[in-house]
């Protein structure tokens, strides 16, 4: 049973560039949430996708956008990167009707220079 997978593992970008991160949910899950984790802090909710629509959004600017595909996989896009966007980006999947528990992938470490 495949767990949540994310790609790439690491990424280095320059300030002002754009980045796309990818996530495949755990088998049987239909909902994907994205979180940002800065060093020494807990994960912060960015947004959640269900049925290919953004269902809920945290306190992040419009530079952060996402997409969910018919196979439930998801992308997180960040435009006009700032140094402060350097963080671990985590994807979590869940089953909308089955449980409120969320399962995380290994994360993508983004460094903005």
């Amino acid at each position: 049973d495949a767990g949540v997978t994310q790609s790439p593992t690491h990424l280095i970008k320059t300030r002002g560039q754009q980045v796309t991160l990818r996530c495949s949910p755990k088998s049987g899950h239909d909902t994907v949430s994205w979180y940002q984790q800065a060093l020494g802090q807990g994960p912060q909710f960015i947004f959640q996708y269900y049925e290919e629509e953004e269902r809920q959004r945290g306190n992040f600017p419009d530079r952060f956008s996402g997409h969910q595909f018919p196979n439930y996989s998801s992308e997180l896009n960040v435009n006009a990167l700032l140094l402060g966007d350097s963080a671990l980006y985590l994807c979590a999947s869940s089953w909308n009707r089955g449980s409120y528990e969320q399962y995380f992938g290994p994360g993508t470490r983004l460094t903005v220079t």
Partner: protein
Amino acid sequence: DQQVKQNSPSLSVQEGRISILNCDYTNSMFDYFLWYKKYPAEGPTFLISISSIKDKNEDGRFTVFLNKSAKHLSLHIVPSQPGDSAVYFCAASRLYGQNFVFGPGTRLSVLP
């Protein structure tokens, strides 16, 4: 304004003893709670959950207690093992299956 607090940044426990990790929250609307552990360079691993209709949930060595009136939950690990050494996060949500608010984490060290 931190809605979920884990006031102990770190905790050391002897192998075989009980580890108790605490979490406090300020929003009385939170109804769903999760505990995760996280090793360096890995994503958080789900441990155990509890909803507000219960005050206790057990899964093997892990037990979570919820005191809604005090807005407090705790995770008990018995017996503690060296492999339990990790950062532990509690998370809370108002809505079923939707966004979770995480605490800052507690680093647990289990000493052999």
